[in-house]
């Protein structure tokens, strides 16, 4: 099957890749574009470790063909923060012990980012319901939920907005 040339906007940069139709977006991101923040957890659309943001929606990138992402804008954990300048969510996950092994964390934070974009003042229930598509197998959800709520608080401080 011949490969199709793809032009994607990933983390604000226009990038090119080539994929045959059956290649899943997660594989193109990780193997061709070397964007390895999104992880492969279950490969069966359940765990959310592969979550990325596509045109303003959280998507499990193991359940989308790369060819379907042609022309879209994609944000991954790499686009949110970096070791020199952590995103508020990353900061709060660190502070509140929202991670242990860290395997679920990129998907968790990418999802939480979209949740806060849509709902800047979530209740605890909103957060639990909003991250229901992301599984964590070691930290437990208490601290993850605390971290997301703390990030929401911080982002709502006037100085954080400016």
């Amino acid at each position, binding site marked *: 099957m011949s490969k199709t040339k793809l032009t994607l906007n990933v983390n604000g940069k226009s990038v090119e890749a080539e994929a045959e139709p059956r290649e899943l977006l997660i594989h193109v991101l990780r193997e061709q574009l070397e964007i390895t923040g999104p992880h492969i957890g279950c490969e069966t659309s359940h765990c959310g470790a592969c979550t990325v943001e596509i045109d303003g929606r959280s998507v499990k990138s193991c359940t989308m063909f790369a060819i*379907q992402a042609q022309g879209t804008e994609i944000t991954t954990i790499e686009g949110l923060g970096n070791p020199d300048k952590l995103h508020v969510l990353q900061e709060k996950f660190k502070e509140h012990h929202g991670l242990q092994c860290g395997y679920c964390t990129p998907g968790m934070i990418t999802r939480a980012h979209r949740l806060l974009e849509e709902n800047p003042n979530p209740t605890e229930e909103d957060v639990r319901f909003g991250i229901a598509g992301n599984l964590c197998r070691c930290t437990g959800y208490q601290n993850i939920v605390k971290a997301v709520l703390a990030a929401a608080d911080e982002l709502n401080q006037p100085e954080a907005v400016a």
Partner: protein
Amino acid sequence: MIPGRFEYHQPDSVPAAVGLLSDLGDEARVIAGGHSLIPMMKLRLAMPEHLIDLRAIDSLKQISVAGSTVTIGAMATQSDLIDSTELATAAPIVRETALQIADPQVRYVGTIGGNVANGDPGNDMPALMQCLNASFHLHGPDGERQVPAREFYEAAYFTARDDLEILTGISFPACEGGYAYEKQKRKIGDYATAAAAVLLSKAADSSCSQAAIALTNLADTPLYCQEASDHLVQSGVTDASIDAAVQSALGQIEPVDDNRGPVEFKKHAAKVILKRAIENAWARA
């Protein structure tokens, strides 16, 4: 898990999609949100040689309420249904159901068309559509036809849709009265162990003027419960008539033993869930 090889097509109109499907025939499948189909392709339970992606057909994404008729395009996603204020007024049960499907990521991409066309008894929208007395609009090489949701499901994964037809939309009368979609599941994001859709209208004298009941994942198709619905209209909604309606509906179910539990447990769950749905709908009527 890598799906088998296929060729990808992205038509930009319904006639173009129908044309492609006619030309490619048996070897082709339509893809909507892909959240049932891609997992099946990874398991090689589906191995289409051609995928016809409907994502670029904007006309299939509309949601409209005209007079007392609600029309939803096949490519409206579950989150489109949740976000639609028109729909929240004209048929709040749709939002209540959509919020109980899967998780946020799945709801951003999973479509109503894929959910009802799939034919998986675990899908939640089919029973809801039967409850709403919806019609499915099918477009094929010979033109358009409509099939009532109550006559659409034949067996697991077998529906009245011809292989060469595309489901373009769904229409149903706007709802009056009380409603409830109650779902028992093992965890958020899971398919139903048992679920029930109920619509009830209360007349001025507190009798029940209209009733519709349908069940999810309790047989190899969704089940519309005509007798149970009629019973509530004839007898009014009382503790005794609710029990009788539930018993009647339970007579229709054929749950199977699986990882969601043994048959006896599912019958129990069905009973609890349906009773709760009727009581909630009546309280809201």
